[in-house]
């Protein structure tokens, strides 16, 4: 019975995530929008196993989670594959009427292309714009990975994360999935050394859920 309930919840969450259904409006008390790059989109895991999808499953009908993650997207660097930066799309995609909380995980694709100060300024601008319309923003630190040799911008990633940790409402994704060599833990690695698998995204979803409930 418990398994059947979980399956129904999973299918419902999947339909919500892909936009084919909405949680019952009367029961929803929180509306979250998850925004960012391929880590938000759920690259590396099967459809329905991104961390926003798994967050939806965890909170059931009490919340509605929308996923506006885009692969190869950047916060401030305008040369990313997605084209539009989150800074330019934030008001339109995230700060929509009814949203209570924005969950933002982005920055990896900006590394090497913009300075740490520019990135931090970008995060602060998102927070300020959200605050102006009464939306709370949570940021996730940038998860560890390296797909290039010789790992060009790892120190910048660490620096960005350290500065993020000094900001309010930050969920430390990195700490959850890093190993002693500073790499993505093998059990959370989708296989490409960059994206997480379903188990990895589950860990992120749980951390977000706990933080939002705190």
């Amino acid at each position, binding site marked *: 019975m418990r398994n059947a309930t979980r399956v129904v919840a999973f299918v419902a969450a999947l339909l919500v995530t892909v936009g084919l259904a909405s949680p019952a409006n009367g029961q929803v008390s929180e509306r979250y929008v998850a925004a960012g790059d391929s880590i938000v989109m759920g690259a590396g895991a099967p459809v329905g196993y991104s961390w926003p999808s798994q967050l939806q499953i965890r909170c059931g009908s009490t919340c509605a989670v929308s996923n506006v993650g885009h692969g190869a997207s950047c916060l401030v660097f305008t040369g990313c594959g997605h084209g539009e930066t989150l800074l330019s799309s934030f008001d339109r995609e995230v700060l929509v009427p009814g949203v209570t909380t924005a969950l933002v995980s982005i920055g990896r694709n900006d590394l090497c292309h913009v300075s740490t100060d520019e990135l931090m300024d970008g995060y602060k601008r998102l927070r300020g714009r959200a605050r102006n319309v009464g939306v709370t923003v949570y940021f996730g630190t940038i998860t560890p990975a390296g797909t290039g040799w*010789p*790992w060009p911008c790892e*120190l910048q990633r660490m620096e960005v994360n*350290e500065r993020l940790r000094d900001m309010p409402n930050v969920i430390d994704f990195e700490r959850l999935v890093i*190993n002693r*060599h*500073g790499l993505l833990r*093998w059990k959370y*690695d989708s296989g490409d*050394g960059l994206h997480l698998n379903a188990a990895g995204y589950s860990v992120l979803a749980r951390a977000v859920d706990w933080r939002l409930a705190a």
Partner: protein
Amino acid sequence: MSDDPWGDLRELSAQVERGEECRQFIDSKGHQILTALRHMVEFWGGKMDEAAEQENEQLTSLAMDQHVSWSRTLKDAEKVVDGE
């Protein structure tokens, strides 16, 4: 240098993380894995120096952690390759 030094290091790191005996993997890679590990040690040593020159204690500490971690792994791997 191996065709995929990064992949070799990831695999080695994963084996260390799992607490596995890495001897077979290191033996199969021989001096290639040592070269890759030395590269990582040098890389983080360089980053440590850069951060120290900038008097950035936080980054120096982060880079030092990585330098120490890779140095330990290199030392262990050297013992295997040297047949100790």
